[in-house]
């Protein structure tokens, strides 16, 4: 067991429990886009960031990955956290300006507009959270899709962009997609 404080409250939890799991148990709201409790944490959406003070040294950490540790002090709603989270939501709005899920989430945190602009080729309703990749690998165990390329060219693809013969059409990828960008087509 480890003991630490979360928003001023002292807690004792099992070693290896992530800050996000503890916070959700405590009824603290932390936004996420790439997290699903049935799958491994990936830490790509960055929205779950919280402030962790360890040995007097504050840093910003993703709650979905960071394990609760003895003696740390965690704050989920500091000025620094709120500011970075809002800017991230502005980036999401710049990336996926037409996605209702993103618009709604941003609105929830008081972000209605974005100061940032991305090129047409950099915009997409796919936010590269990787939930579909993990669902396919961890739940369906098919590995039909994965990340390809890097930087702004990063995309979710089947091998060689061809129809993946390992895909069984289970639709798990579409089910977990937070922006609904994966569409299912019936084969002839």
């Amino acid at each position, binding site marked *: 067991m480890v003991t630490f404080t979360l928003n001023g409250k002292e807690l004792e939890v099992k070693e290896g429990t992530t800050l996000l799991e503890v916070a959700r148990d405590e009824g603290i709201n932390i936004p996420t886009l790439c997290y699903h409790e049935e799958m491994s944490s990936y830490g790509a959406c960055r929205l779950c960031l919280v402030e962790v003070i360890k040995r007097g040294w504050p840093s910003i950490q993703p709650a979905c990955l960071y394990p609760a540790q003895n003696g740390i002090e965690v704050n989920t709603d500091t000025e620094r956290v709120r500011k970075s989270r809002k*800017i991230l939501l502005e980036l999401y709005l710049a990336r996926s300006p037409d996605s209702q899920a993103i618009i709604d989430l941003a609105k929830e945190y008081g972000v209605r507009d974005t100061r940032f602009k991305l090129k047409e080729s950099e915009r997409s309703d796919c936010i590269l959270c990787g939930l579909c990749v993990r669902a396919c690998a961890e739940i369906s165990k098919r590995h039909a899709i994965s990340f390809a390329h*890097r930087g702004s060219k*990063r995309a979710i693809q089947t091998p060689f962009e061809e129809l993946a013969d390992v895909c069984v059409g289970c639709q798990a990828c579409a089910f977990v997609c937070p922006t609904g960008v994966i569409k299912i087509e019936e084969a002839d």
Partner: protein
Amino acid sequence: MEQEITTRVTPISAPSEMTAMREQCKDALDRRKTTFRVCAGTACIAGGSLDVYEELKNQIKQRGIDVDVELLFEGGETEAGASKSGCHGFCQMGPLVRIEPQGTFYNKVKVDDVPNIISATLEDQGVVEELLFENQDGSRAATEKEVPFYAGQKRIVLGGCGTINPEDIRNYFAVDGYQALAKCLQDMTPEDVVEEMKKSGLRGRGGGGFPAGRKWESAAKATGRPKYIICNADEGDPGAFMDRSLIEGNPQSVIEGMIISAYGVGAKYGVVYVRAEYPLAVTRLFLALDQAREYGLLGENIMGSGFDFDIEVFQGAGAFVCGESSALRASIEGLPGEPTAKYDHATDKGLWEKPTVLNNVETFANVPIIINQGADWYASMGTENSKGTKVFSLVGNIVNTGLIEVEMGTTLRKIIFDIGGGIPDGKPFKAVQTGGPSGGCLPADKLDMPVDFDQLKEVGSMMGSGGMIVMDEGACVVNVAKYFIEFCNDESCGKCISCRDGSAALLNILERICEGEGREEDLETMEDLCHCIDDASMCGLGTSLPNPVLSTLHYFRDEYLAHIKDKNCPAKVCKPLFTYEVITDNCKKCGLCFRNCPSDAVIWKKKEVAEIIQDKCVKCGICKEVCKFDAVE
């Protein structure tokens, strides 16, 4: 390979044999009365040094002199021979040739110069005056020591680079090579080795600056088995070539450092993660590993001590981010080269979840020197918290482009002006970017700052791996920031939105400013975004990518404002933000601008002042460049 060892090799079977081995190799090489040492680093090779080398060999042979190295090792002696070496550092003046033992130092040597060099050296005992380095006052420097570029340096790690043949391990033996390992195996316990490293104060040279001894201590105490030693040679910063030059010039020193590290922490396996884009370094590394194995310095029962360790080479496939430790490990493990969040230390759970020491090339190359000369000697160099020396690659608008090594704490002014020779054509210094794309851009008032890990951090930059890009007044800092952000956007793995889309959004703003469409609120927007990218990104690439923007915003805010408010690029780089005009009073009506303009934008008639038609001007700057009367501005 050029210098394959054909003499039968007897492996070293006890550490005590190393002394005899050194003397034997030293004696053998000394039996060659004159050596023409040709730089065979990448830059000199590109300049044609291998042709010079071949020609030297041929012409020496034509004089009836046997140039076969093996002859020396079989007890014979010879009048003269040519030998390749790694980078001498003075890349600007390559191809370089040094005559040993005299020390005569020739630069910009061409094949045609070879007959003169040979006859001057072997017949007249003289020098070829015009190939010696010319000082600014017109005098000539006969040896390296007299050249200002070398005079201000302390070449300790680079000591072997440029003086020994990197393709023949016996050259390394002759300069105390593997004496440090022998000393460790014979006289020191693994604990002693770690203690010595801690005492030396050596900090990781890859950029992080973590104390190497403490890292080794953690790995030594870790309980997991087996343990790994990784050498990070995935050097990717634009303008940086320290690691490449070290591997090309003295690969055995890096290997010996790794073996000593392995002995200290109890590791069995080592990996060198090197860029595949460094073909010469890779070739020499493989050759060096083979030769070390032949002599029983790698593999099972090293020097008959019962200690086993071997090294594999892993070639990176071209992703900058793989220089980041967790991405590097993922890459070796066959996973995509993508950083992962690690809350355990690599010294406990690193490669394959086993205790791992990951250090940079230069860090390992320091190790044999520390063991040989002692931690106290090493710690006597440098500043309070940054000991020893640091290798830098000096590039950009600088007279002496090259590879240098200075004591920690040397000022930027000494590095750039004394060693680097200052800015070409006497132009004013504007800024220096240290630490590569993750570093910062420092202005002239920081020139007297001593360079070490902490000082650089304090002023908003970083040591990084040691790239130093010098800029004159012709560099636009907004454009420089744009260049580095573009680089990071391209090299981001794309996992964290803050790094991937954050850098794209930053780039978008910078592009707008460079096109004259900047808005005053852009500066605050960029600062907000930069702090978010730093806070929200997972790995070092993301957290440090805002540095070029933040440091230029801090030190050169006026230049941003000139772009935004005055629609003017003072450095005349951002094309929409400046024009070229003819200064009527200065124009001598010569028509040179008219004749050289590639876009017919200059109107000129005999005996008339030239005029530039802005609609046609492509702002190439040729008119300004060719004008002899400063009549184009």
